[in-house]
């Protein structure tokens, strides 16, 4: 009984907190989002499933998963059937969330700092940050590509870790799968489904 009440209380705080909207200023947006994530992921009162739920909810609200899926599809997004693209986007979302949760639940405590921001255009701002691991490892430079077309609701489109773009890596991985399979989007979809179901 005690366990259930602790679970319900933590669930309440989890949803109350993640329901809050972050700032519309790109720098503040990243700062608030990451600090909340750090506090949640290092919270010993939350189990892995609760952390996964938190990551999923935050990602669905703050990452432009649809645009990311289209970007990773490359030129094929222009020539594919609408239905195939919709199927791809559906499975991509599941793939993205599964891959993200598996990466982040192993999170170890780190200090996070915003270094600066660079407004590239009315649509994009790059927010620069660094992560300093508390275990003494080298600091990691992370740039956040923030989509600001709607200035009231910034969205994350890419993370560039030490100069390596996660979106570009994903796009090139998909391009390789597509090129060895006659650019057949259905094969890519089935490979993503395999990953999601394993």
């Amino acid at each position, binding site marked *: 009984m005690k366990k259930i009440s602790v679970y319900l209380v933590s669930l309440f705080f989890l949803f109350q907190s993640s329901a809050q909207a972050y700032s519309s200023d790109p720098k503040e947006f990243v700062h608030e989002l990451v600090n909340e994530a750090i506090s949640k992921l290092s919270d010993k009162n939350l189990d892995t499933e609760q952390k996964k739920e938190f990551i999923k909810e935050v990602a669905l609200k703050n990452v432009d998963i649809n645009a990311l899926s289209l970007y990773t599809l490359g030129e094929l997004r222009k020539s594919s059937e609408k239905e195939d693209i919709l199927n791809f986007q559906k499975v991509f979302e599941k793939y993205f969330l599964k891959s993200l949760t598996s990466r982040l639940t192993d999170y170890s405590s780190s200090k996070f700092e915003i270094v600066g921001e660079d407004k590239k255009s009315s649509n994009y701002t790059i927010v620069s940050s660094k992560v300093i691991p508390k275990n003494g490892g080298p600091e990691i430079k992370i740039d956040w590509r923030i989509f600001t077309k709607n200035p009231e609701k910034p969205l994350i489109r890419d993370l560039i870790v030490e100069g390596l773009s996660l979106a570009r890596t994903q796009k*090139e991985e998909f*391009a390789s799968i597509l090129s060895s399979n006659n650019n057949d989007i259905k094969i890519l979809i089935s490979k993503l489904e395999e990953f999601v179901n394993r």
Partner: protein
Amino acid sequence: MKILKNIIIFKILLFTILASPNVKSAEECFEKTSRAIFKFNMALDNIVLEPIAKGYNKLPSPVRTGTKNFTSNISTLLSIPNNVLQGNFKQVGHSVGSFAVNTTVGILGIFNPAEKMGLKPHKEDTGQTLATYGIGPGCYFVLPILGPTTARDSIGLLADTFIDPFAHVTLREKELFGASGSSLDYYTIKATGTVDFRAENDQNFESLEKNSIDLYSSLKSIYLQDRENKIKNSTDDVDEWGNLDN
């Protein structure tokens, strides 16, 4: 006769690259063979490198930092001739200054006081130098044990052993400013640097292995992005999102 043959092979290779400076780096030289070599490298990593890296990660942090500093200080030597060849004399100063300070005050490079003095040399190799001369990467392939490379970078790798002062002293066993060594020293330092790199990125490798649908392509993309960044000495992302209209 043998020398002449080697020169001809080298010229053919160089011509292949120079004739195609605009070849997209994503193009493969011989993908099937590269994928087979990649499998072999991964097996070798699982059996040899990964266990050593995991053991290495259990060492106290100061030991790992000291080892990293030591190998990194030696690798600064390769940057000196490459910065000269690139005409980047400010960086020549950083490389020479960093090596001199760390080797003496930093006790053979175990400590890194040069960084606190503002000396931060960029690591430069011959592949990067060739790139600054406008030579494109050529096609991509995987070498046994050494891993991903491009036509340009593989020639650069070979050239490195001729212009690197450390290789001159160890691999070629020639004396330089009274310093001497053996090829064993060369391979030991290179192997230690590899273990340190593998250990530092152990979690990243695990995560990549777990989340990739095609690990070969993910690592290829990472290698090529990393080389691009090293050549332009910047980690600024190139905007490829402009044509995505939503």
